[in-house]
């Protein structure tokens, strides 16, 4: 059974590097890659009545935009390297969703870019990468 790598992707350069690193690893190890893109969303936020009315439509637009502007390109990149690839777009808290998927899909490794906000901001508010490091159920690689 080939192993599975979960790669958390967004539109940042660090994420590109993480994906490239995962591809390189996968070529050697023969693993497949699952690209995960998370749209930050909380069920506990507050909306205006108009936002509620439009939400379903917005959601469809957001999903299709993420698919065409980001995911399709990444999937093509992985395929052209000869690695088996799958993708999913989800809503929620990024670190939590990525960790959940890694566990559900029994991934052997998790890759994520370190978006290098650094400094005080990351120290006070945390970053997705550092949260993943804390909660990941599988070995995780943080790519700078």
């Amino acid at each position, binding site marked *: 059974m080939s192993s599975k790598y979960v790669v958390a992707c967004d539109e940042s350069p660090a994420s590109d590097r993480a994906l490239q690193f995962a591809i390189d690893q996968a070529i050697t190890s023969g693993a497949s890659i699952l690209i995960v893109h998370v749209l930050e969303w909380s069920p506990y936020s507050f909306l205006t009545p108009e936002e509620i009315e*439009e939400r379903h439509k917005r959601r469809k637009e957001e999903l299709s935009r993420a698919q065409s502007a980001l995911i399709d390109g990444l999937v093509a990149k992985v395929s052209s390297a000869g690695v088996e690839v799958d993708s999913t777009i989800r809503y929620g808290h990024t670190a939590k969703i990525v960790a959940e998927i890694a566990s559900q899909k029994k991934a052997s490794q998790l890759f994520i870019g370190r978006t290098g906000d650094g400094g005080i901001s990351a120290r006070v508010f945390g970053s997705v990468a550092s949260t993943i490091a804390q909660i990941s159920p599988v070995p995780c690689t943080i790519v700078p």
Partner: protein
Amino acid sequence: MHNSKFIARVMAPGTALVSSAASAQSIDETVNQVFSNSTGWFVSFIFSPFPGTSFPWIVAWLVIAATVFTLYFGFIQFRAFKHSISLVKGDYSDPDDAGEVSHFQALATALSGTVGLGNIAGVAVAVGIGGPGATFWMILAGLLGMASKFTECTLGVKYRNEYEDGTVSGGPMYYLTKGFAERGLPGGKILAVMFSVFCILGAFGGGNMFQANQAHQQISGILGGYPGWITGVIFAGVVFAVIVGGLKSIARVTEKVVPFMGVLYVGAALIILIMNYDKIGWAFGQIFAGAFTGLGVAGGMVGALIQGFKRAAFSNEAGVGSAAIAHSAVRTKEPITEGFVSLLEPFIDTVVICTMTALVIIITGQMMIDPATGNYLVEGGKIMTEGGTSGVGLTSAAFGSAIGWFPYVLAVAVVLFAFSTMISWSYYGLKAWTFLFGEGKSKEITFKVIFCIFVVIGAAANLGPVIDFSDAAIFAMAVVNILGLYFLMPIVKKELQSYLSRLESGEIKKFK
């Protein structure tokens, strides 16, 4: 010679200012006159009492309906309370539905529309006229009203229009039309049209004028008296920027701050109650005694009852149908879940927040008692208060007597609550408007501009005619809506039974 000229020159701008203030004052008066003259007949009709009594038929209508729904659904508000909380927490939310409107969001938005000046100022009016006993009837009306909300919000989701572009339109005008047609009953469309008309009036009245009026009263109480239309114009300008200009950022900030202010308000009330813990027993004693004897208020026990029921209905909008418009946009396969979630609203709005306001007013001793009889001193149909305050001023004085700086916080809270209620009701009114006149940009703008004009009128008019018209318009919505609910409630019962049996059998999945 020189002196008198000098004095005259110095006095001139002063007199100009005084005379312009005087003419600004009379703008207020003119607005007030015109308004009370044109709405008087409508108000009288809605609030006409049963012959030979002083009991308005509309109050009976609302409470009987709430009682009927409570009994018909087997006290659903108590049976399903825990399940409602689970739904809001997201225990039954499918992870694949993440990104759609959550139950919490629907509840928060609907609450942000109902929690407004009714909770702060309206309660003060009720307690000021009906005495502490009004609180008891208010809580009772709140508990009963949960069943009305449950019914209408379920129907709102079940009979909404879903358009190709993914947007939805729902509410009483839709369930009256479609639901009646489905049951083969005539007259659905007529009721829907009547409801829409009253909803537009309600949006202008309670959702708009009353909010602006009381917001101005609180602000001018802090800053010093100045003509109401000035507050009105400023408010109207901001509302215009949001609903016409699409300046969503303001609305978003408000939506986020309002819940926080709500928590702060209840927190402050609790602190005041704890500060006066020795009087809590007395306060509840007053409430119970007043509920059944009146303790000297105008109209006695019935007076307390009427005021309590009126305020509860106005504040939590149970049976009015507005919440059904808000909840109808939630994406869910089970319409009844929105019913469950919505029954929390009258509880939070009336049983919690309104009661907090009432308790603070009672416990801080704002209302004057005749030491000889233990009854309240009544003048002109109202209880006499320390400082002669009424409405939001009474609430402000009550909080201020315990926490000196709270009136300033209250002013901020009042402005935010007023604003968020206005935004929500502009939406409800717009939905009713487009139901009547069709969708379309220019039609929407027409409504929105008229809405903003009413903000100015509301701020300028006196509390009396404004609150009367606001009440009347909103209750008129309830007349039509509840009539529809009586005919459609069997549909809700079927949904309820189906859902509950599937919940028990485990067919409805719990995800957390």
